[in-house]
């Protein structure tokens, strides 16, 4: 009977299923806003033996989908028994950490007993006393107590459980839910209607008025408003839908702002694609004939002044939506003449709005205004789909009995459809949408890591002279090489810097151990030298030879002969290696720290 639906969080398919817009770009922002998790427990109970409901399970499913789109990890129970609810709540509480946001949603029957609220499981038994009834239900106070103990960052408790119910009736209890007592700190509590009042199921919808509105707003990725503002909108919408009979109720002790959807940078002004998202949402609203919502979104787009095709589209769309809203309002008020006029106006603004045309036809026919209705039917034949054309033809055939004009229209044959430019009026084919490009450039940055990660700026060291007082005895250092002096190296270092190195830091010494050739007597002695390449950490380790110093990596030009390479650390020789330098040879020595 009961079904548990679990989601473990961010999966691509969930995102794709949940929203049409590029929500993936919002995910990092949500993570940036909150270090903790977003966890939701959702329960929807329809299958009560007495007084079953028809929308609560749908409500739970709608909330599950909406909350997942807002980054919540959800656990959803459908038609839960008392034991199921106890266990699920326990597991839910166990998952909560101090940085987390906990959201508990219940749709089903709820009851207040002695000023305390209880949620009714589907296996609520027939009990004789109020006390027994309490034990058979889930106590909201108990949930509050557990939430207090867990100290989550914030707790959001939403109860769509204010319907008239069998428990209340059986024990002659007060209707609706009680004002919540002793809610935990950092909590937000919402009821589908005010305390002590009852809410109606939505007889024509799949969901209750309250949950339908709430899930809808939570699903809107572009609706980047704070939690309280979301509920302000829910209250307005439910109140309008129920003509004031039901107004959701909220109370909050939250000290931090909470957003179901946050713009990428946390600052909506910096998201250049937000206007596009709003416009996409507006089009969805338009299709659902939610004119007020669509108008709000289009106005938001226009306030942002996105320029280009998007702004043109929004500017053109606004009077159309307004005309449709007016038409509906006037039609519902019974002012058919004004409604028909508004429908006609809407059709002028969007000649392909066949539903407006049809509504207009019906509204004119209600007033027996045949010529006006036929004009709209002609429009349907000209611009509508084959289906709209068939509908128009059928209506014209019926009207042909009383209207020669209708008969003529039917006999005139199928008109040629308008050119494609007319179908997509407002779109300038062949002309780039410069502003869309600009928005794309603002929103997209090319990652250049692949080019920069290998970049180097090593500067070749120039030929440096070891500074000495006597110029004729100063040995030369070729580029990155230290050449041995012509004379035999002195036994002592005459350079204070070299002395300091010798005494203290890690370094390498090159010490002749046998005869080296006396080059002083040779005019051209290039073939009497060999080379030793010293490799190791660049710039760190000095190499000393003949009282002179260079740093790694370096190539020493040494008179041919025998040497000992000493690695010295803190004044002690930690490694020795013999090396024989042959004329014109090149060897490599790797310096390793102990």
């Amino acid at each position, binding site marked *: 009977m009961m079904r548990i639906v679990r989601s473990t969080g961010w999966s691509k398919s969930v995102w794709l299923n949940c929203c*049409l817009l*590029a929500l993936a*770009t919002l995910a990092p922002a949500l993570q940036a806003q909150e270090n903790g998790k977003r966890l939701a427990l959702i329960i929807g109970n329809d299958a009560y033996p007495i007084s079953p409901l028809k929308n609560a399970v749908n409500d739970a499913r709608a909330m599950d989908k909406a909350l997942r789109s807002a980054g919540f990890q959800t656990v959803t129970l459908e038609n839960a028994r008392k034991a199921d609810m106890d266990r699920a709540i326990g597991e839910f509480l166990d998952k909560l950490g101090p940085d987390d946001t906990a959201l508990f949603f219940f749709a089903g029957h709820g009851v207040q007993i002695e000023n305390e609220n209880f949620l009714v499981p589907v296996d609520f038994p027939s009990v004789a006393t109020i006390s027994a009834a309490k034990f058979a239900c889930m106590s909201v106070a108990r949930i509050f107590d557990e939430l207090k103990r867990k100290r989550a960052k914030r707790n959001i408790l939403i109860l769509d459980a204010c319907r008239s119910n069998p428990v209340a009736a059986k024990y002659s209890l007060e209707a609706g839910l009680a004002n919540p007592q002793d809610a935990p700190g950092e909590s937000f509590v919402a009821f589908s209607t005010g305390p002590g009042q009852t809410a109606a199921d939505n007889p024509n919808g799949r969901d209750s008025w309250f949950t339908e509105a709430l899930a809808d707003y939570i699903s809107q990725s572009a609706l980047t408003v704070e939690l309280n503002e979301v509920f302000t909108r829910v209250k307005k919408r439910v109140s309008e839908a129920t003509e004031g009979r039901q107004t959701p109720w909220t109370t909050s002790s939250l000290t931090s702002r909470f957003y179901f959807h946050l713009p990428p940078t946390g600052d909506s002004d910096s998201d250049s694609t937000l206007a596009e998202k709003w416009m*996409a949402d507006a089009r*969805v609203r338009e*299709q659902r004939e939610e004119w007020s919502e669509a108008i709000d979104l289009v106005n938001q787009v226009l306030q942002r002044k996105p320029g280009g095709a998007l702004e043109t589209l929004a500017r053109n769309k606004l009077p159309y939506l307004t005309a449709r809203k007016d038409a509906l309002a006037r039609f519902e008020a019974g002012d058919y003449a004004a409604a028909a006029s508004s429908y006609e106006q809407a059709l002028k603004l969007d000649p392909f709005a066949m539903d407006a045309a049809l509504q207009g036809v019906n509204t004119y026919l209600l007033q027996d205004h045949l010529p006006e209705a036929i004009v709209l039917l002609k429009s349907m034949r000209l611009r*509508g*789909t*084959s*289906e709209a054309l068939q509908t128009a033809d059928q209506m014209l055939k019926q009207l042909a009995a009383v209207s020669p004009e209708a008969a003529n229209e039917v006999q005139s044959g199928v008109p*040629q*459809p308008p*050119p*494609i*430019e007319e*179908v*997509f009026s407002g*779109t*300038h*084919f*062949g*002309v*780039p*949408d*410069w502003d*869309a*490009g600009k928005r*794309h*450039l603002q929103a997209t*940055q*090319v*990652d*250049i*890591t*692949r*080019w*920069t990660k290998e*970049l*180097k*700026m*090593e*500067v070749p*060291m*120039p030929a*440096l*002279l070891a*500074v*000495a007082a006597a*110029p*004729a005895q*100063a*040995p*030369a250092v070729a580029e990155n090489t230290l050449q041995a002096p*012509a004379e035999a190296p002195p036994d002592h270092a005459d350079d204070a810097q070299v002395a300091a190195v010798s005494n203290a830091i890690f370094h390498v010494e090159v010490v002749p151990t046998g005869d080296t050739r006396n*080059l*002083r*007597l*040779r*005019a051209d*002695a290039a073939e009497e030298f060999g080379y030793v390449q010293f490799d190791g950490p660049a710039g760190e380790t000095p190499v000393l030879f003949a009282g002179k110093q260079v740093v790694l990596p370096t190539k020493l030009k040494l008179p041919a002969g025998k040497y000992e390479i000493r690695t010295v650390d803190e004044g002690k020789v930690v490694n020795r290696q013999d090396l024989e330098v042959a004329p014109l040879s090149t060897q490599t020595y790797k310096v390793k720290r102990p």
Partner: protein
Amino acid sequence: MKYLALTLLLAICATAANWTDRKEYDLVLAIRAETSPQARLALLDQWKAAYPKSEFGQVRRELYLSVYQALGDSPQTLSVAGEMLAAQPDSAVGAYWFTLLLPEEKAASPEQLALGEKASRQLLADPKPAAGVERMAHRTLGWIHWQRNEYTQAEAEFEKCLQLDPAAAEISAWLGTVLATEQQPDKRVPALWQLARASAYQDSGALPDGLRRQSGEVLERLYTAYHGDTGGLDQLRSAAAAAPFPPAGFDVESVAAAALRKQDEELSRTNPQLAAWVRLRQKLEAPDGDKYFAETLHNNPLPKLKGTLIKADPPGKPNELTIGVIDPAQAEIVLKLATELPNDADAGAVLEFEGTVDSFVKSPFGLTVTTDPSKISGWPAAPVASPPVPKGGHK
């Protein structure tokens, strides 16, 4: 004007196009009504499959382009823009989007680069381009040259970009990367400047925080390698944040220049004569060394120097001496004497000399100086002959 004409031409072409049948029209109306980009894409695919030869092919591509754009699928948008250019080489929409999106392509083919260059140049050919288009075209051209390792052209394009939009920190990052990639000594400081600007500039046009931080890390790494440490890096950042290009004469001392400077300071203190010779030699070995020789040194007196004799020719009474000044074994100066010296000297003799600079060879380095024996000191005197030993020995 070209765009206007093109637009009109397209309009005429589009007007002339006809629906294949009513079902095609129905399909297009369904596409028009669809609000979900994914569903719209599916309908476009359906249209394409059912009417592959539709007269509205280019319009259909444009609709594809807008759908992929709405889906944030840049590779597909680029691909459609390429198709538009293939179908109509002067397509303004194709050229615009291809130019705009090409730099996002991670591994652009040579063909794509060629098409991107053509598209960019087409946009630049418009005498009255829309705002930002010229900058965007130079951005892409620079990027294309960069991918082809044509760094000088890439630099030129990015510089044009920065002249058009000095706030474009993205271009500063690209230009800095190109300059650093070149590994040319004279481009290192401009590279550091551009990377500093990319990482420090924070007004409108700045890089997003993540990329700014990345640029900053690259800058610090390169700056440390170049300068030896991070000293002066903050000043560089501040200066670069205020201007897109370095002021004339701006320099950052490299670790090599610092070493040379320290050497010069030390030599000037301990051995000014040698310091002067090292400076002179550096000037002669610089790229404009020949010019310096001709204008400053030739036929002028050489300051007094000390050096080591390497070779004296001809033996016996030499009139040409080869001297090493820095390296006692490396010939640097040849002294040509007006008159010969009276005797030989061993290699290794330390001489002090002066003279007039005659000629210069850069590689292998050699300076020829004319002088005469009176201007050379340290030449050993001829050994005194031993008195003959009388025959018969001692009495």
